[in-house]
């Protein structure tokens, strides 16, 4: 009996149960309110529908919480109960083996595919089905009971004076707040884990060594001086901004001031397509097209310098992956961030200011240089800052085209590594969560997070100030 119950399709049952509680609660509340208003002469404060929503809310809320709790906890509880009943031989198994055994048990019990050749396994599976069956039936009963209690409680409130509408609205507000809180709580959780793991890392490696050390060799030598990574990140972001800032800004000026409506309607979406290209595509573009190009130009410069007698040996490193290649492609990638935001702020400069300048006999370029750009400057700066924080956090392009060697070099044709590249390198493959090698990734992540947070905060403040001015 319990075994059969163990195979109940809980997803469907829970959905059906919740829908039933909802409709039943609504009808009960509504009908009661209508009966009341027919029998009594007094005017109802809230319309019958609101009483319906109110009762449904009270039926649904506890049921929903219980259902969620079941979905999260049922499996671990069933496993825990099962483990306790297993013969002593099982408890001597290594933890990983026990877990995979239990995985097999729950998979087989879900799909009923086992041929029964291993009698112990069959018995364990049956016991597991019994356990989860009793859990399921208890859950369903509890949900039904709580829903009935909730509905009865709410139904007793239905009366002409009861402010059901206000109750429903504060219920809706609470629901919306919870949704917002989930997003915030996730962020807080991520930041907290970053801090926690970083603190563990800094208990093994001094903060000053990490922040000011110039040798990084986390994989083999346990050297954690992150300065070369900061340098690489900074260098590549700088190259990217050398591309993105002028190109993006001039594109924005063209779009907002010069392009005809028709051109704009084609060019603007096309520019924004750039933002939709997956960064991994940029990455292999950087690796396969740009990096070889950079290398051959560097080799040519080397050869020329030697030819004309200015150098005795190669001056540039001319590596197959290079800071310049990654930076150039990253610059292309962030162009739409600069152009789109700058275009928005330039468009937000009131038309009356343009009219004023034109009516004074200013030419178009005078108007742009002397009136529009100064007025839009804070917004443009903000768009550049957002682009920088985007460039610093970018991962895929640098993983593919920047390189792995941590070093400090101003030669753009050499390979550099960045914070993000190292995080990827540290956390891929076999990792143990206690070694400083893995923990250093969290420290790097924390630095990255704090830096981009600063940039974003400054950018947001600047944008806000600017908006206030023109509204």
């Amino acid at each position, binding site marked *: 009996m319990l075994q059969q119950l163990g195979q109940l399709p809980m997803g469907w049952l829970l959905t059906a149960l919740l829908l039933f509680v909802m409709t039943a609660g609504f009808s009960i509340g509504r009908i009661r309110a209508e009966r009341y208003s027919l029998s009594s002469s007094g005017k109802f404060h809230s319309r019958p529908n609101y009483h319906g929503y109110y009762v449904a809310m009270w039926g649904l809320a506890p049921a929903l919480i219980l259902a969620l709790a079941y979905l999260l906890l049922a499996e671990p509880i069933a496993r825990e109960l099962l483990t306790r009943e297993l013969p002593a031989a099982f408890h001597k198994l290594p933890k990983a083996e026990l877990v995979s055994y239990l995985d097999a048990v729950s998979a087989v019990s879900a799909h009923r595919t086992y041929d029964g050749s291993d009698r112990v396994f069959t018995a364990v599976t049956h016991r597991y089905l019994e356990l989860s069956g009793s859990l399921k039936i208890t859950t369903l009963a509890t949900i039904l009971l709580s829903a009935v209690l909730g509905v009865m409680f709410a139904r007793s409130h239905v009366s002409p004076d009861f402010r059901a509408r206000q109750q429903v609205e504060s219920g809706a507000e609470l629901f919306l707040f919870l949704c917002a809180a989930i997003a915030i709580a996730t962020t807080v959780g991520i930041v907290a884990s970053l801090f926690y793991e970083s603190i563990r890392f800094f208990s093994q490696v001094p903060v000053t060594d990490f922040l000011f050390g110039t040798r990084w060799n986390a994989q083999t030598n346990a050297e954690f001086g992150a300065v070369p990574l900061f340098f690489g990140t900074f260098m590549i972001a700088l190259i990217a901004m050398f591309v993105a800032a002028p190109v993006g800004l001039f594109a924005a000026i063209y779009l907002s001031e010069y392009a*005809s*409506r028709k051109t704009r309607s084609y060019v603007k979406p096309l520019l924004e397509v750039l933002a939709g290209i997956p960064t991994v595509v940029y990455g292999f573009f950087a690796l396969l097209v740009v990096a070889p190009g950079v290398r051959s130009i560097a080799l040519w410069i080397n050869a020329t310098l030697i030819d004309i007698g200015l150098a005795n040996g190669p001056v540039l490193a001319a590596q197959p992956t290079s800071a310049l290649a990654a930076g150039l492609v990253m610059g292309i990638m962030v162009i739409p961030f600069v152009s789109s935001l700058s275009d928005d702020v330039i468009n937000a400069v*009131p038309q*009356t*200011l*343009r*009219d*004023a*300048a*034109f*009516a*004074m*006999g*200013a*030419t178009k370029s*005078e108007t742009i240089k*002397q*009136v529009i750009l*100064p*007025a839009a400057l804070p917004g443009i700066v903000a768009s550049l800052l957002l682009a920088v924080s985007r460039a610093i956090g970018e991962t895929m392009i640098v993983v593919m085209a920047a390189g792995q060697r941590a070093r400090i070099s101003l030669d753009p044709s050499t390979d550099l590594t960045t914070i993000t590249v190292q995080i990827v390198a540290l956390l891929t493959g076999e990792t143990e969560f206690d070694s400083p090698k893995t923990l250093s990734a969290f420290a790097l992540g924390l630095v990255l997070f704090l830096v981009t947070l600063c940039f974003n905060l400054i950018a947001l403040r600047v944008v806000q100030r600017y908006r206030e*001015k023109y509204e």
Partner: protein
Amino acid sequence: MDTVGPAKADLALTGEGADKTQALTYPRIDCRNVSVYYDDKQAVFDVSLAIHDRAVTALIGPSGCGKSTFLRCLNRMNDTIEGAKVTGDIFMEGENINSPDVDPVLLRSRVGMVFQKPNPFPKSIYDNIAYGPRIHGMVDSREDLDAVVEKSLRRAGLWEEVKDRLSQPGTSLSGGQQQRLCIARAIAVRPEVILMDEPCSALDPIATARIEELIDELRKRYCIVIVTHSMQQAARVSQRTAFFHLGNLVEMGDTDQIFTNPRERRTEDYITGRFG
């Protein structure tokens, strides 16, 4: 450069004491068959009228009647609107300013404009006034520029109020002061004509009265064309009035005649408040 340069505007400085009858004697701007199209929609139909120097000409009419659009033909501001097309001839000093050979940038230094909403640049009061003289290269030294700024602010009746805070942003002034700042900014390039597009519609009655006094003062030196929604304002400040309706010029004449004895039925209906 000889015919369309700001230097010629000096003419306008000789008109002290010109009285009303003299003012109505010679036309400054002569418009013939002016039509304006926005894309395919026609906004102004075949308007011909003469605008006199040393006088205020008011353009009145209900919303959407094409009076502002017509006003913007006089300094080619319609060029800045995509899809706008102006046909017909507009003669200023015998030169057709609607011809493609005329550089609108130079034209606009001769024809100043004041807008509905005060629109000072986000710069200091001083730089707002100095903007025009600077871009047109009208001054050689800082002293000259100071003099132009002071003279323009005095003519706009703003000097006494702002002389101690010329370096503050123009946007820090009150609405009425901002509008007088915009008038001073327009005067600073020594234009011959000043166009005003509902210059008081964003101002309170006291600031409005102040601007109207100023317009009356400026009339002695400049040719002024003002678009207004307020018939009382047209009656108070103008010598000539043109009534527009649905993109057509219905009637034009001396202001007294238009308001006391209009020739057209539609004009009478509008000024007596039967529509509009």
